[in-house]
């Protein structure tokens, strides 16, 4: 058998068991949340009599049944597990219905009568800010003196930028099964990226110590950040049901419920001002981000900080002020999604630069190239730029995409064609790797070498398709010097590796792979000492292990890794919050149908810095998949709420994500050669999030084509309101968008 990813083999055979595929334990109850039907209201009464009358198995649990603290919020306590008095978004859980079958539970939930008093609804972040509905305090990062620097600028542009939310559409929806354990504890099988987070939430809600709660995370059918904080509620509800009834409880949301109840990528509305000298060098940048945080704090503070850290994109900006406001609205709490605030910040920076290019009548690529970060520069948060691969990536991408020739061809095409116009754009990338919350940058592993020489590895990493298990398998095999097939990666459980950070922020392999490596080195040290003591010479691995066991050598080890060198002074907004940065560049071309306002991406060239790759197949898949999601966010995925906080795009027939036709264009991906990264495991670099940003080039490539349709593409004003849907494209072509 070839060296395929063993878990992928199970996937294609259809044998991987996701939460809803596992055999159901005897006595299982199905849980269905009863949710608020409006976006803001005071709960006056909840009448469960009709639901209870439906079937003898029906139980209805409310906030009063929660034995511990009725709270899910970790940063700020503003998210009850079940609403006791006031709901703040549509789809918020008010009660939990349990019944013998899923369909009974759903029907019973629909019979629970809610009476409430409607309260005013705010969905717009700027309106929320104007009304003082802000979470925590505004946060500002600053470098130099932008106010003074603007006075020296030859060109100053300003504008407003909008970016929409994005639904995760993990193909497997949210779910969990909970069971009471012998001894009074709770066992939860949770579809989560954060087993420890779930463990903590369940313990808190049930009033149990953490050691009474065991959480297992099986392989997830996709997550993308959507199961980082937001898996906790469903697991905690299942646990509550099991705790109260003593029977196993499963909650598994259907697609429509999942779309309606859960949070998504944050929409942002932003104002910027950018100043440049006559040569096009950026001198000053000011930006205010109005983050639509939704109704609860969730991960918004950490997400906002990543926006602020990425305010300057891949550019050197000597004078900068970036301020972020977390605006509380009556929408489901927006949450982590691949990129975690960085895409929103980078889009504003690019929009500003493109606006400046219009003002100067130059191609945006000239300004992009002129202002790239270089080694020795300093980020606006005080961290020196080490080994910048920005210019290298950009120059290579321009060369590989034959930028100059293509530009000429496109201009010629646009001169001769009326019905179609083409465009092109680049996106230079600089993305910081590490959790922006310092304490989270730690990972643990437990490695067992069994006495037959096979190896079992437990880490805090959750496999959700990103290939972290495959990479850790390779790290372990390489470190111990054994074939990959001898190494098995176990599913993630809090009882074997404790106090884990969520598998997020692209750090899954960096933290957990390194922890596994540390554990393997420890075992390797013991074995090599034993080898020399016992005179085993070059005896094979299996013999060595078996003899070592006979000689009572410990064949298990726990490994721990905390990313070194990180520090941050939150007051001064200065420090070194990232282990390293990932660089790269995308060049995308697009073609617009001028009659119909539709468009296609024609080609993509990516040059990406992945360090020394542990597994190229995994990294290629991550880069391609991230670009796809980025393009979806930039162009296609249209998350819509109405003014009352009702989600309009609440099915996959109204919320469209990229399909195979949408992404049917040649994609040329080159990983930067000779680019080892001394800061991460086996000199690799994190891959999950950074290539998402390349989707932004898709926005500007389509916009470039649209501008060509309206006149002199170098001078026609563009617009920066993402996603760039066919509706906006046609509105722009027909002048409705000026």
């Amino acid at each position, binding site marked *: 058998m070839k060296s395929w990813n063993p878990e*992928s083999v199970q996937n294609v055979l259809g044998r991987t068991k996701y939460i809803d595929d596992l055999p159901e334990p005897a006595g299982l109850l199905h849980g269905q949340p009863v949710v608020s039907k409006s976006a803001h209201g005071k709960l006056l009464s909840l009448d469960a009599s009709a639901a209870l009358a439906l079937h003898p198995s029906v139980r209805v649990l409310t906030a009063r049944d929660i034995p511990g603290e009725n709270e899910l919020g970790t940063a700020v306590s503003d998210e009850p597990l079940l609403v006791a008095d006031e709901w703040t978004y549509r789809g918020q859980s008010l009660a939990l219905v349990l019944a013998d079958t899923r369909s009974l539970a759903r029907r019973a939930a629909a019979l629970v009568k809610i009476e409430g008093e409607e309260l005013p609804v705010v969905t717009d972040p700027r309106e929320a800010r104007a009304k003082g509905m802000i979470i925590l305090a505004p946060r500002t990062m600053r470098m130099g003196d932008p106010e003074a620097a603007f006075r020296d600028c030859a060109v100053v542009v300003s504008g407003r930028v909008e970016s929409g939310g994005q639904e995760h559409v993990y193909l497997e929806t949210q779910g969990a099964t909970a069971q009471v354990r012998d001894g009074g504890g709770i066992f939860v099988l949770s579809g989560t990226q954060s087993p420890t987070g779930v463990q903590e939430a369940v313990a808190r809600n049930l009033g149990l110590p953490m050691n009474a709660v065991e959480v297992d995370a099986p392989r997830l059918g996709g997550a993308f950040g959507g199961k980082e904080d937001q898996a906790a509620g469903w697991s905690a509800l299942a646990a509550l049901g099991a705790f109260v009834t003593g029977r196993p409880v499963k909650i598994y949301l259907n697609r429509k419920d999942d779309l309606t109840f859960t949070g998504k990528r944050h929409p942002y509305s932003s104002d910027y001002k950018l100043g440049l000298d006559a040569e096009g060098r950026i001198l000053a940048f000011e930006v205010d981000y109005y983050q639509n945080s939704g109704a609860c704090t969730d991960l918004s503070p950490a997400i906002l900080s990543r926006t602020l850290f990425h305010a300057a994109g891949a550019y050197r900006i000597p004078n900068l002020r970036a301020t972020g406001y977390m605006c509380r609205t009556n929408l489901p709490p927006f949450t982590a999604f691949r990129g975690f605030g960085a895409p929103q910040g980078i889009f504003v920076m690019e929009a500003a630069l493109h606006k400046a290019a219009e003002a100067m009548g130059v191609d945006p690529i000239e300004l992009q190239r002129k202002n790239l970060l270089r080694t020795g520069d300093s980020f606006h948060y005080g961290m020196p730029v080490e080994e910048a691969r920005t210019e290298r990536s950009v120059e290579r991408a321009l060369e590989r995409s034959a930028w100059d020739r293509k530009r000429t061809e496109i201009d010629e095409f646009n001169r001769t064609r009326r019905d179609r116009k083409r465009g092109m754009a680049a996106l230079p990338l600089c993305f910081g790797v590490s959790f922006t919350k310092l304490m989270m940058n730690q990972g643990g592993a437990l490695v067992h070498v069994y006495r037959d020489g096979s190896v079992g590895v437990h880490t805090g990493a959750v496999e959700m398709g990103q290939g972290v298990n495959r990479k850790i398998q390779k790290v372990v095999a390489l470190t111990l010097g054994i074939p990959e097939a001898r190494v098995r990666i176990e599913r993630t459980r809090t009882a074997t590796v404790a106090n884990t950070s969520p598998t997020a922020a692209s750090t899954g392999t960096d933290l957990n792979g390194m922890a596994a490596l540390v554990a393997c080195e420890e075992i390797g040290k013991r074995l090599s000492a034993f080898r020399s003591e016992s005179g085993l010479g070059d005896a094979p691995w299996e013999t060595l292990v078996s003899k070592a066991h006979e000689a009572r050598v410990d064949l298990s080890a726990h490994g721990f890794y905390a990313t070194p060198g990180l520090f941050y002074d939150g007051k001064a907004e200065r420090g070194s919050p990232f282990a390293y940065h990932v660089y790269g560049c995308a060049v995308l071309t697009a073609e617009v149908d001028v009659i*119909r306002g539709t468009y296609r991406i024609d080609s993509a060239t990516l040059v990406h810095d992945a360090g020394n790759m542990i597994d190229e*197949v995994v990294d290629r898949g991550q880069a391609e998949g991230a670009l796809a999601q980025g393009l979806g966010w930039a162009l296609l995925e249209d998350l819509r709420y109405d003014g009352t906080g009702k989600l309009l795009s609440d099915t996959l027939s109204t919320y469209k*994500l990229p399909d195979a036709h949408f992404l*049917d264009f040649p994609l040329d991906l080159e990983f930067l050669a000779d680019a080892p990264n001394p800061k991460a495991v086996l000199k690799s670099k994190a891959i999950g999030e950074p290539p998402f940003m390349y989707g932004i080039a898709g926005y500007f490539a389509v916009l470039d084509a649209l501008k060509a349709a309206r006149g002199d593409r170098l001078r026609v004003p563009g617009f920066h309101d993402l996603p760039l849907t066919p509706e906006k494209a046609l*509105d722009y072509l027909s002048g*409705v968008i000026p």
Partner: protein
Amino acid sequence: MKRRLVFRVNERLVDAEAWEETLALDWLRRELGLTGTKEGCREGDCGACLVLLGERGEAGPVWKAVPSCLLALGELDGRHVVTIEGIAAAGLTPVMEAFLDQGASQCGFCSPGFIVALTAFLVEGRIDPVRTLVSIEGNLCRCTGYGSIRRAADRLTKDFADLPRDLGARLAVLGKRGVLPPSLAALMTSLPEPGSRPAAAPEGLNLGGGTDWFVRNPDPEPGTGVAFTDRQAGLGRIERTGDFLSVGAAVTVRAFFEDLLVRAHAPGIEAFEAQMASLPIRNRATLAGNVVNASPIADMTALLLALDARARLRSASGTRDLPLADFFLGYKKTALRDGEFLEALLLPAAAGPVRLNFEKVSKRESLDIATANTALALRTEEDRISWARLSVGGMAPVPLAARAASEYLVGKIPDAATAREAARLALQDCSPLSDVRGSAGYRTRLLERLVLAHFVRLFPDRGLLEEFWP
């Protein structure tokens, strides 16, 4: 209702009394424990629940990939369902190996659906690169961006370029080459006898492909009276009857576009197939279902209105014919009376073939509901339009036959002024809404352009493009 159903699932014959309206997806997962078939959306949009369905064709079984979330158990009577478990019964297949070589399975939740889609592609045996992509157009993957999946599919296209045309021979080759377990491949050449006969004159709900009904009724209550048009004799045919081309109620969208009579009547019509739903949906959705569903934005209805279709409605007392334009009374309201069902759509064909164009814009180009759509069919004599029918969708509570515009066009030279006037007249009938697919203003701007686009496409030598977009 509850009936005796006899069908095959993978290599096993099922003979059971069962509720017909149970969804095949639920039944496969819960009753048989075949959990490789996944529920991703329960509305036919993601393909995670695809199964291979074998049904009776003119010359033996016909195999297609269909979404099991929109498939009633009652539909399976006398048929054969192959799930991922059946395909994988003997271990990895070349389709799976191509996936593994390319790393085309990440989280894996969508993988079984893709494997089924590509296996269906090989079983159908019409291998070319365009069809390769079409074969997976009904599957969503959120992880890969499809690059690795396309590379895997392209390899299969090369490796299986020369499959035999005959189904039996093809299945034998696929069995030998491990695409299917040989024992399963052998079973797939014939279908079991159904367990019950459908009622001659079914009462109550008479379901076509169910691709819309099950979206609106995702948890059908046991006991919902359901009859299936494709289990009734004769409804699956397209034939010339007198002056009409008769399209039976059970004719699927796919069968319609593949039909030679249809293609002769409206040359080039097959080009529009790609704009209708996705292949797995086209495999199941019927034209009649599209019509009775009465969605103002139905794509096939827009085509049928331009083709001047009549609806033949049957009841116990006989049939009556109605111009399709008169069939729609209001939003989702039709002229169907109690006890009546749409038996066929009749396309007038006495005057010979028509020239046809269809325009649709949606957020996503494929498998998406239109923001607006329109079709124009016409005949010309010399350089004048002698007959025309223009239809408009998404612009009113019902699908519109733009009568004033159609009448206006007769006798006109198809120049820019004519096109503009037709668009103006068409818009007079419209009262678009703003919704998640677009604002009323956008719809209006869009429709005007789409009507002009008809003329640009149908009369490419008249320099209209230059006039409209100088």
